């Protein structure tokens, strides 16, 4: 299919007179329509599943009182983490002065907003009283990390919407409305402030998501000071990786250089260092809680996991080796970093590693049963969980929504202001008639 696409795109490039390259085409390619159609099918399946859950309640899931969180929490945690590219790259541009990252910052903001809105969909589906989703905003419990997360997610999503507003206004007929044009201009002026707010809010809740598990004294698998930091480090690595991945794939499909290659390389190195930092802390966390620990509860927990679940393997292979170590090498080794296919592969591995990590983290803590009896008998059964079909359906809703929204965003919004079309040899063509970036 990819070869076919390339052919088609090359043909279209050849057919268009050079002066018209870069002018918006109103005609949709067949591939685009098939892809959008596929996503709409996913979305429809998701909507049907979601309605089924809303009508019948959470009893239709495979969740239990012993294992009350499952696939949707994994989707929620992963979406927020994968949206972390937004705050990382905005902060890079506006706080750390890496102006050239601006070429990719808009994409990061779009990915961020889609990640956060996906998380809100997953959370909405996961609460028992859907009609009370707004309660955390009204009834505060400032001691609850989950309350803090909810508030931060709401506030940061607002920041992301504001950051995206100028892009929407300038890319659509909306810019003809004078007041909107002025507002967009003002928002652009505010960009550094927004980036600062985004970073502050993200640092708060990205780590609090790890603390959601990390502070629970009753669960020795979770209870650890490293959980919050591991969450934020992995979020930065995976969030940046997702932004890179969608940029590279969009470029391949649209036969354009979305972002200058030196920026791509620089961002890839950033992801590589984030992976290394994550691995470093992960190693010490594992050493402290497994290798050096003689705490009976931790030993028993590790025992249960290796006996009843594949999570020990998915930890080492999914999270550590393929999820961070190998991609870090890809990102940091110049020759591989300059190879776009290798980069795509590395980004994909980091993202997969993150989703596996969030699943493992959630499920491992629940699989190991609570033991509150003072007796010595082995009376608490190990908990099991496999998502019900309808849970997968709602996961499709999130996937369909976010992928469709991104596809349409790249197609219709000026997400990559520095994008340049490629010639038949794959070299970017300079188009002086096209504004490179509008500030």
């Amino acid at each position, binding site marked *: 299919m990819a070869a076919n696409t390339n052919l088609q795109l090359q043909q279209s490039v050849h057919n268009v007179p050079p002066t018209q390259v870069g002018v918006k085409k109103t005609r949709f390619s067949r591939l685009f329509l098939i892809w959008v159609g596929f996503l709409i099918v996913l979305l429809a399946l998701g909507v049907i599943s979601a309605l089924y859950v809303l009508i019948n309640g959470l009893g239709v899931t495979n969740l239990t009182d012993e294992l009350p969180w499952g696939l949707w929490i994994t989707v929620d945690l992963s979406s927020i983490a994968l949206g972390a590219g937004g705050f990382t790259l905005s902060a890079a541009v506006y706080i750390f002065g890496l102006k050239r990252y601006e070429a990719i910052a808009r994409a990061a903001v779009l990915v961020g907003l889609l990640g956060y809105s996906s998380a809100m969909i997953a959370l909405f589906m*996961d609460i028992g*009283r859907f009609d009370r989703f707004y309660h955390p905003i009204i009834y505060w419990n400032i001691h*609850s990390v989950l*309350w803090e997360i909810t508030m931060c997610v709401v506030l940061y999503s607002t920041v992301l919407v504001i950051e995206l507003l100028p892009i929407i206004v300038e890319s659509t007929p909306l810019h003809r409305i004078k007041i909107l044009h002025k507002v967009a201009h003002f928002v652009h002026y505010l960009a550094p402030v927004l980036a600062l707010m985004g970073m502050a809010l993200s640092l708060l809740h990205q780590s609090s998501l790890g603390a959601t598990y990390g502070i629970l004294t009753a669960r020795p698998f979770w209870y650890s000071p490293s959980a919050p930091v591991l969450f934020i480090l992995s979020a930065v690595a995976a969030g940046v990786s997702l932004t890179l991945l969608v940029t590279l794939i969009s470029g391949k499909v649209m036969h354009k250089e979305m972002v200058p290659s030196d920026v791509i390389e620089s961002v890839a190195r950033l992801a590589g260092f984030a992976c290394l930092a994550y691995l470093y802390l992960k190693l010490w966390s594992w050493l402290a809680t497994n290798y050096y620990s003689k705490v009976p509860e931790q030993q028993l927990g590790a025992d249960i996991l290796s006996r009843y679940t594949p999570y020990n393997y998915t930890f080492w292979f999914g999270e550590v080796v393929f999820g961070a170590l190998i991609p870090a090498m890809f990102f940091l080794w110049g020759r591989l970093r300059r190879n776009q296919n290798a980069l795509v592969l590395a980004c994909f591995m980091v993202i997969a590693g993150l989703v596996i990590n969030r699943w493992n983290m959630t499920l491992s803590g629940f699989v190991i049963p609570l033991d509150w009896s003072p007796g010595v008998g082995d009376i608490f059964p190990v908990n099991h969980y496999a998502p019900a079909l309808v849970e997968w359906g709602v996961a499709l809703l999130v996937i369909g929504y976010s992928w469709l929204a991104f596809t349409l965003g790249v197609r219709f919004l000026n997400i990559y202001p520095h994008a340049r079309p490629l010639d038949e040899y794959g070299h970017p063509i300079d188009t002086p008639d096209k504004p490179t970036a509008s500030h």
Partner: protein
Amino acid sequence: MTQQPEAPQQSDTNPVEHTSVPLDAPETLTTEIQPSLPRTEVVTKQGQKLKLLSRAEFMTLLIGGGATFVLAATLSQPLDTFAREILRNRPTEPHEGESPHRWGMVIDLSKCIGCDYCVWACQATNDTRDDMRWNIRVEDQTRLGTTFHLTRPCLHCHHAPCVEVCPVAATYHRADGLVMMDYDKCIGCRYCQTACPYGARQFNWRERTDENPRVPDFGTPEIPRRARGVVEKCTFCVHRIDAGLARGLIPGIDEEATPACINICPVTARYFGDLNDPNSPVSRIINTHPTLRLREDLGTDPSVYYIPPEGLL
């Protein structure tokens, strides 16, 4: 780089004094004086430039470092006191209002015969389904290999993890120690279930349409059924306590003001009362018997005490 082994000293305070060392010595440093600058630059034999501190810079560092040290030393004691004060008064569990009472329970595991009457009386009174019991019984072994029956209501912890984690403050502490649920606030996120060390919380996965199998043999429902999508839990039959107190009854002594599970026990293995009152049945037992509480290592400070059977302590 020109090397000036016998360079004249610009100022007598220049810290570089060892220029008389032979040049061929590997560690030799030579100075290169720049008259306009107070800072001295040192060039190693390899041509590497090193900067030396001027007297002013050195004094600044010395005084600054010293001041920091003195400040840290003086502040560490108040800071420690402050941190301890925060830890002592950390408002992890907002107890609402003031009350002279703290309700508690004692369960005598050496007496319990595992008849399940307390489980069923609770089900009838609070209208719970078989798979959503607020008060459950498990069988466990002592170190001697003997079986004992452990019943577990909500332990109404003084430091309740469920209260701390609830994002909407739907679960809260009353001043009398009870951990309560506001079913109108609960959004059903189930974080309290995740945080409770004792598995004492049940979620309404489905709409309730079932008939209560314990009614009327073990009592009749005294509170309304909870809606689908909220988490529920044992209340120590708070409706009885409050109504009883209003009528001048004493919970734990007068049956009408006492939880259903206490009244029904055929072997008097369960006691209820005010832990703050030294003459209450619970206080007297706790003062005269060895007791344990579940997972005391977690620091949750539960209000339910157990008298262990032989071989458990």
